[in-house]
């Protein structure tokens, strides 16, 4: 089962790599002009640079050359940075993973209890307040939220730094707090909605009415409801996590963080093929891993799924 899934993911990654390669080839822009600039360039120079990066080969040969490298573990060298792509990615991934992790943790820790509380007090002032805020959080663009947070917490209150990543773990976490909060606001708003809806559905189920009729304590009922509401919430959380890739590009730019979002944006514009290929594949792989993790979590959360999987 798992092996089949991994094979499927690999096939998907290969198709994706072809697609990205083709799209980058078709996209406007010219690597040679990016490298040589627009000033006096002789045909010899252009030919030399084209040969250096294999641009004189037919497209399928360029792709196969790249694929051949990847199969042997060589992701190539960034044309723009002149550093091996693997090392470049490792340098950049840390910041983005930490940022995403922090944002996700913040969102979950705040949004899930709020969503549940909102459902338990459906129609009350708290519910309306939380819903109002989550609509605001959902509709505010992340770069605007980032600037607002910067203005309030970094410039006016001076609690946090304005830009950069800092040195050492504690300092880095401190630097990443505002950017993470920026992403968490949008992410959290979705999670609040998801949790509220899922919890409400459970609350109106027959088993809850029955449990209450049997005289179970409130705490016992709440535990039952939350456990059952967890499955759609986990699925939803896994999905929104994959959406986060897009918001990191904007947030990394606003807060001047050297993460993969910024790298991806620059590399696409420069047509730095090896970096774009490796990055998109890495992101796709992360998404595949998240999807797998979500499925595995089902096993933990839902005994029915666990039994079925074990039986098969």
């Amino acid at each position, binding site marked *: 089962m798992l092996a089949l899934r991994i094979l499927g993911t690999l096939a998907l990654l290969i198709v994706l790599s072809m697609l990205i390669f083709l799209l980058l080839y078709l996209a406007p822009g010219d690597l040679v*002009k990016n490298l040589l*600039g627009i000033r006096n360039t002789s045909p010899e120079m252009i030919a030399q640079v084209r040969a250096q990066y294999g641009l004189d080969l037919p497209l399928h040969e360029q792709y196969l050359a790249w694929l051949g490298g990847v199969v042997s573990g060589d992701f190539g060298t960034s044309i*723009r940075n002149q550093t091996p792509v693997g090392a470049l990615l490792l340098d950049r991934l840390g910041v983005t993973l930490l940022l995403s992790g922090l944002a996700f943790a913040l969102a979950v820790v705040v949004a899930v209890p709020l969503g549940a509380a909102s459902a338990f007090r459906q129609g009350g002032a708290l519910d309306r307040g939380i819903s109002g805020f989550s609509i605001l959080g959902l509709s505010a663009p992340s770069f605007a939220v980032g600037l607002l947070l910067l203005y309030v917490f970094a410039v006016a209150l001076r609690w946090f730094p304005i830009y950069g990543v800092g040195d050492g773990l504690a300092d880095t976490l401190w630097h990443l707090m505002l950017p993470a909060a920026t992403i968490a606001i949008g992410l959290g708003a979705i999670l609040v909605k998801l949790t509220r809806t899922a919890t409400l559905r459970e609350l109106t189920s027959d088993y809850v009415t029955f449990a209450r009729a049997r005289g179970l304590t409130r705490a016992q009922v709440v535990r039952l409801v939350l456990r059952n509401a967890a499955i759609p919430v986990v699925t939803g959380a896994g999905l929104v996590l994959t959406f986060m890739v897009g918001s990191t590009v904007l947030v990394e730019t606003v807060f001047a963080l050297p993460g993969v979002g910024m790298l991806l944006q620059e590399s696409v514009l420069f047509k730095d093929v090896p970096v774009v290929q490796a990055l998109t594949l890495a992101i796709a792989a992360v998404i595949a891993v998240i999807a797998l993790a979500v499925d595995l979590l089902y096993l933990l959360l839902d005994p029915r799924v666990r039994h079925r999987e074990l039986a098969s």
Partner: protein
Amino acid sequence: MIQLRRFTRGHRLLAAGAALAASALLLSACTATPPSAPAGTGVDTGAQIDEVTVALPGSVSSLYVGQEAGIINYYVASVSQEGLVKIAADGSIQPALAESWTQTDATTFVYQLREDATFQDGTPVTVDDVIFSIEKAQDAEVSPNFSWLLAGIESAEQTAERELTITLASPSVSFQWATSTSGALYVTSRAFWEENEGKVGTSDGLILGSGPYKVTEYVPDSFVSFERVDTWWGGVPTVKSVRIEFIPDDNTRLLAMQSGEVDMAFNVPAAQAAQWEDLDNAAVRYTPDLSYVGLQFDTAIAPFGDEHVRKAIAHSIDRDAVVDKLLRGKAEVATALITPESIASVYDGAAAREALAAVPQYDFDLDAAAAELAKSEFPDGFEAEITYPASGPQLGQAAQSLAQNLAKIGVTLTVTEVPLEEWYTTLADGVHGLGFMWYFSTTGDPGELSSWILGEGNASHYENPEIAALLAQAAVETDQAKRAELLIETNTLQAADAIDLPLWWGQSATAFSNDLGMNDYGPFAFFSPWPAALYRAG
């Protein structure tokens, strides 16, 4: 028939410039008087400065400037590396690693290296290191972005212990600028390069130079930090360490300046300049930046091969309005391809502008534009597209203004914004016959732009034997005043044919915190070790 007029706006522009905060500097740069502290900046207290944090609007992808020679790369590399010569505030060529040099004949330059030139690791700068650096700069694979600048060198040889003789394949006066850090020579050590082969300029390898600051750390898209050394021939500067932060978002940069997290910010965006000027803790200083913005036609593409079409467009541009209203006066109406600062060493400020204003101009006159169009093969108008780079929103505004005017005479001009990288590909692409020319000269060689965009094989497909002859003469004319005259003549000739339509000469804006001063702030300031010119203002 041709409605040209002679412009004499030099004085008016300077008078307008006096209203700018940077007026003292603008004038000093033009007139070559010793620069003084501008209004609002205190005098040098002589105090040491522990750290200066500088915000740049984008990151460099390599510390080795040949790999990616954008304007930001020049700013960063100039902190730690030097060339044989440098360009002084008045545009003149001054000693750097070479203490003196002579041109022995039309193609031979002899440089004497200074005895006390030392790399930041303590090893002496040898003639061999300079030759090595030239070879690297000439190599299109290692230095794709400026190999063409040194392509004219036939040989570079050591002719005495501290003497370097460079022979050119053909005479070129422009070459003297090429060996500066404004041109294409950033000297590094051969031993360093060979030890770090393959990672020079990366965060692992960094870069080694002979300037007053050595690179200590570099994180692409984040920052690069420098520490001062005591090995520089020019002495020990006041600022102990420099940290350049790459902050791409305009608003974040503004907030960082406002909160005092950065002391200095390059390239203050024109659209936000008013907000920067309102800051209590900082001042924005303007200086001409040797940039030229103009329209350029490709005569091989219809309808722009028709001289009347080009002139109709020329008459439809309201340059005064663009500069005064859209650019808030933070630029100067251009009358030629040559910038006044690039001929500052032969003309003083006002005279340079007068000489350039003698180039024939096209008035903003829609009646004249309509008349020209009526005479063309396209009397009923036509449709065209002009692209501009997203990083130059002011170009877009100018294009919109032009499009509005053209609509009145029946020409539909579509204005399209594209990323800078895409914009490159729309230049001379055989599709767009009308485009922008946006060029930053780093060297101050007055012939740099003209010889390229009017010279042989130009993108306009414009052939004018007279211009070709003048450019050939200018290439070998060693008398700077005569050379400037020849170059101005080429601009005059092309103006009659309306191939390139000058719009404005740009200014760059730099924000300094109130306690930070800078000597010699001007068009060339950031192409030599600029942190050494900073001081604590009191």
